[in-house]
């Protein structure tokens, strides 16, 4: 949210003119950035807000979106949109990306010039807080496991008693939603908002899938590799599972039980924890897009540090990469271009780019198109 200082300046000028300002804290656009994990409870979302107020140095009040993402979905489903509401309740301005300069002009037109003109440089500069406040806990020591190509996040429900120290991001090949078979990527991530870490002196985490009759999961259980490089870390524990649910009644969820040892960062306790997750084979439109620094959105297959960033097949010099194009045109940042988002020449060639005819152009389809040049 690079626009926050500009908005803060306008807020200071216009709150005395009877204009109310609210930030709406929505689901994470890019989970895993700065180690953050998608909240699954409203208390976790409120904890993110506390962190955001400090990290972004803002006095503008925040509203947490509901866990069903009611506000985001009712108000355009954008990551950083900006809406001005008139006293009669009409949305008189609605732009898909916040633009403080344009907003100031809007407010001058709607309620008149402010008596003060606060500049961003007038705001007391405050050094941004560190990413997650867990600098002492190592990260990046456990190799990532690459997600399948064209994978999409699935709806995951976390069950049991709070706090939910561990979160699961499950992604699957598109074929899984279509044919109920394919590769499932499981990424178990400790949530830094709970200030816990893996205890590597204890047995590694284990997962176990409750296999419905007729279903095949290969493997149906697994154990994370023992980490000897550090006594503690915060890295995800990731697994690939081949599944075949084609003979199982549609809508049957995948139930996964996980056992692990966690310690709190203040060294007050270490304890065994069991959590249960329920995966539905439906795409989670609010899960955000994972972008791993230096490695595109994926990670590694078997442990290297490749991925889709540097060194991957891409366009020639001076030409945009598929990721450049996506970052420009993917306005809802769901990791693909919809027909509405594809403008200009891309709109004319949308059907040629959408090779699997699913109504959106994925990064892989963009890469394939660019590779044909």
């Amino acid at each position, binding site marked *: 949210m690079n626009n926050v200082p500009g908005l803060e300046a306008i807020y200071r000028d216009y709150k005395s003119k009877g204009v109310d300002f609210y930030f709406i804290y929505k689901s994470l656009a890019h989970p895993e950035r700065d180690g953050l994990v998608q909240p699954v409870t409203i208390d976790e979302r409120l904890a993110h807000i506390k962190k955001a107020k400090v990290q972004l140095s803002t006095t503008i009040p925040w509203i947490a979106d509901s866990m069903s993402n009611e506000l985001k979905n009712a108000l355009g489903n954008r990551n950083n949109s900006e809406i001005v*509401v008139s006293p009669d*309740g009409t*949305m008189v301005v609605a*732009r898909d990306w916040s633009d403080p300069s344009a907003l100031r002009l809007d407010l001058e037109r709607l309620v008149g010039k402010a008596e003060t003109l606060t500049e961003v440089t007038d705001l007391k500069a405050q050094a941004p807080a560190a990413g997650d406040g867990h600098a002492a806990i190592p990260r990046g020591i456990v190799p990532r496991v690459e997600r399948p190509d064209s994978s999409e996040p699935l709806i995951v429900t976390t069950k049991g008693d709070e706090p939910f120290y561990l979160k699961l991001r499950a992604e699957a090949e598109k074929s899984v939603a279509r044919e109920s078979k394919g590769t499932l990527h499981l990424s178990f991530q400790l949530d830094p908002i709970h200030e816990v870490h893996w205890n590597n002196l204890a047995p590694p985490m284990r997962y176990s899938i409750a296999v419905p009759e007729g279903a095949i999961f290969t493997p149906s259980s697994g154990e994370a590799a023992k980490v000897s490089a550090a006594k503690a870390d915060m890295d995800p524990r990731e697994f690939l599972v081949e599944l075949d649910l084609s003979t199982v009644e549609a809508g049957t969820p995948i139930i996964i039980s996980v056992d692990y040892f966690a310690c709190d960062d203040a060294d007050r306790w270490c304890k065994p924890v069991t959590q249960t997750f329920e995966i539905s084979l439906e795409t989670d439109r609010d899960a955000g897009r994972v972008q791993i620094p230096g490695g595109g959105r994926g990670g590694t297959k078997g442990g290297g540090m490749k991925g889709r960033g540097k060194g991957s097949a891409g366009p020639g010099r001076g030409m945009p990469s598929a990721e450049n194009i996506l970052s420009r045109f993917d306005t809802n940042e769901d990791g693909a271009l919809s027909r509405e988002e594809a403008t200009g020449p891309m709109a004319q060639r949308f059907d040629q780019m959408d090779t699997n005819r699913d109504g959106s152009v994925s990064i892989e389809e963009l890469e394939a198109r660019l590779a044909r040049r």
Partner: protein
Amino acid sequence: MTALKFCLLAAFGVSICFPLSAQERGSKGKGKGSPMTLQGEPLPDVSGFDEEGNAFPLRQKLKGRHGVIVFGCLT
């Protein structure tokens, strides 16, 4: 500083260029910063939670006042 521009040429048959500087993103062109179809519509009756966790019915809270709402998150 001049914004670095990339062009799509051969891939899509004609040339379109766009700036990639953070400053220019979001303020120009038909991409980020464009009006949404919501403009001119009544604010829906939707609800979130204030910082203390109390229900916050947006339309009711903004009634009779100009309001600015901006979506965001930490990532």
